[in-house]
């Protein structure tokens, strides 16, 4: 095995065999998976049904709420054509099975006031649902009162299918995918900062323990530095691969065991809203609407270009890691202990933090000038580009240009880093300033 191969093997092996690596590598995806499952499960869970008693002395509703036959209706309606006193509702045994009392006075036609009394606070979603159903029913009553037929009214009431689409039919802009892009860029940020700073810690460890003097009598400083950077980078990729595998297996498992019904293609079609013109009936439309709650599940299984995002994640992680890893190696070689490193780290941490902030700004405008520029500038491109990819606002030449600029910068950084590193690792007992560090470039 070549010397650099031996170094890579040691750097990789010593980290992968650590218990902390194993714990983080297995626990994090399980945690993510568990939280994801919880979110998806809750999105389709039946909440406790609220029993609504409607006191309707004027019989305006005619004892009916039309649109209640959805899968997970959060409330059920009961009618009494009489006035119910508040204190009676509160104490009387026969009303205890109702959670909410709503009084519809005949004057509602003019004063448009409806009052309800609950026993326990009702969730905003359920409240919205109840209000929506009662309003619909009363609107129908008003319509009939004004001489408009029920079917005419329902046609007026039906929402327009309002849709904005990209002029390029090949590009599908989806906001949730953008958010996923942002999540990926956060991950890249975390991965870069975690593993690049491990490079720094590794260099400091070798320097402070003075192993480095023994090592450089056997290998070139460049081999030592590159072996370390590559070895640690491979640890990062290993961790990412394991995460992807665990999360992937988890998602497939959940799909077949937990969300089998939801994943039925027929249900899916419905879930994605009314197809053009086929669902004129308000009843059906409302039913579809309520099912859209589990859009999250659809998004995770069908809406995200996982393959593209994962492969570009790997490429940009490698790029960003080499960029910052080289700089962190320089810092490690220039300081004598980890506590000394904080100050020297500032100029390297700033662009990284800045890229993260740009990333937050770019979510809402992935095609804007900030996004375009910072997806080309090498210190931020690994973090910003993934977001633009997810948003679908990147042309292939932009991607190639960004990667080319990044590769060229990495080359310059690594050549410079190797020169500084060579001198820095043998300087004991002093903390170098950036001025001195630049001087080492010429040694």
């Amino acid at each position: 095995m070549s010397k650099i191969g031996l170094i890579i093997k040691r750097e990789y092996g010593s980290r992968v065999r650590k218990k902390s690596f194993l714990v983080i590598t297995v626990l994090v995806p399980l945690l993510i998976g568990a939280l994801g499952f919880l979110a998806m499960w809750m999105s389709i869970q039946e909440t406790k049904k609220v029993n609504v008693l409607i006191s309707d002395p004027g019989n305006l509703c005619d004892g009916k709420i039309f649109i209640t036959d959805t899968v997970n209706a959060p409330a059920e309606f009961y009618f009494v054509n009489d006035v119910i006193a508040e204190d009676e509702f509160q104490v009387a045994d026969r009303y205890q099975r109702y959670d909410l009392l709503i009084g519809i006075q005949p004057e509602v036609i003019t004063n448009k006031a409806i009052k309800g009394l609950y026993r326990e606070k009702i969730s905003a979603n359920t409240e919205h649902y109840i209000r929506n159903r009662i309003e619909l029913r009363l609107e129908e009553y008003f319509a009939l009162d004004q001489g408009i037929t029920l079917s005419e009214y329902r046609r007026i009431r039906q929402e327009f299918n309002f849709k904005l689409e990209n002029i390029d039919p090949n590009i599908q802009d989806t906001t949730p995918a953008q958010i996923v892009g942002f999540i990926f860029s956060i991950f890249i940020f975390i991965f870069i900062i975690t593993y690049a700073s491990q490079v720094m810690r590794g260099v400091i460890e070798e320097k402070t323990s003075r192993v480095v003097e023994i090592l450089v009598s056997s290998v070139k400083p460049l081999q030592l530095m590159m072996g370390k950077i590559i070895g640690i980078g491979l640890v990062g990729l290993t961790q990412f691969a394991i995460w992807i595998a665990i999360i992937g297996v988890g998602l497939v498992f959940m799909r077949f065991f937990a969300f089998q019904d939801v994943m039925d293609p027929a249900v899916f079609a419905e879930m994605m809203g009314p197809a053009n013109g086929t669902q004129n009936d308000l009843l059906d439309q409302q039913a579809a609407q309520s099912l859209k709650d589990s859009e999250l599940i659809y998004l995770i299984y069908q809406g995200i270009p996982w393959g593209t995002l994962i492969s570009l994640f790997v490429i940009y992680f490698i790029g960003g890691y080499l960029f910052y890893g080289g700089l962190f190696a320089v810092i490690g070689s220039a300081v004598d202990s980890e506590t000394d490193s904080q100050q020297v780290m500032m100029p390297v941490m700033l662009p990284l933090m800045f890229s993260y902030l740009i990333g937050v700004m770019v979510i809402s405008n992935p095609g804007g000038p900030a996004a375009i520029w910072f997806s080309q500038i090498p210190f931020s491109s690994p973090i910003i580009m993934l977001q633009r990819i997810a948003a679908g606002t990147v042309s292939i030449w932009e991607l190639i240009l960004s990667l080319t600029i990044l590769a060229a910068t990495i080359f310059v950084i690594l050549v410079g880093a190797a020169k500084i590193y060579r001198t820095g690792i043998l300087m004991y007992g002093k903390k170098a300033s950036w001025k001195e560090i630049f001087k080492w470039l010429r040694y």
Partner: protein
Amino acid sequence: MEVLRVENIQKEYAGHKALDDISISTKKGEIFGLLGPNGAGKTTLIRIINQIIGPDKGKVYLDGKLIQRDDIGKIGYLPEERGLYKKMKVYDQVLYFARLKGLSKHEAKKRINVWFEKFEITSWYNKKVEELSKGMAQKIQFISTVLHEPELLILDEPFSGFDPINAQIIRNEIMELKAKGTSILLSTHNMNSVEEICDSIALINQSKLVLNGELSTVKESFRSHTYAIQFKGMMFGFANALFAGYSLEHSEQIDEDRAIAHVKLLKGNSLNDLLKTVMPVVDIESVNEVLPSMNEIFIQAIQEKKGGNNE
């Protein structure tokens, strides 16, 4: 046979001369002492020989050929600033260093077993370095340095950190390697060990080579022609007998009528002349030449240099 030859090495750091025209050479089976006060440039020279840094001028030859990157496997280097990976197991660590020096896995494992058995430390295989004492770690470092059987062994302060027993073990190992033909470059401040084990020395001071040569020749050049004479008789009479051709440097009474006197010969007088002069007044019991110790040579050479600079 010459193993290492360093020719006219110069090295400058940001306007400060670290090494100025240094030339030394070591032979097969020889222990060569590289001496000098702190900051004289010894470590810089050693790093240049190890190709850790390059010289501004001058050349380094190994076995008569200009040194190449691959020659690193022929050199063993125990730095003064030495350490090990704290979290790594002893066995893995020695194996790692051996493989970096170019040994195959199989060969490295075989030799590790031999050395660990020799030092009776096979029970340390699975210990982490942080569990070892400083002396134990030093032994591991020594083994790592010699495991690949280098032609040239460079030891920077090899005895520091060892208790006398372990220092003796290491000294014996060094002598054994010398006997097998290894050329050893030893950098140390411990002048006693220089005197005991070095065949040749070089003294560097303020980046310049001040002394260079075989230990006996160097000592010869620092001879002061002083003799220690032990006698029976009166010190008073002894001193009176010495005239202008001798100088009484030092005297010491052993008991009532016996003493030792250090007498320096002046003006081309010989030991015979001295003896003739004092024999009539005292009974001579022994005569020995007083040779300068390495410690004295070291201090003298450096002070002469300082004096020269001041003029």
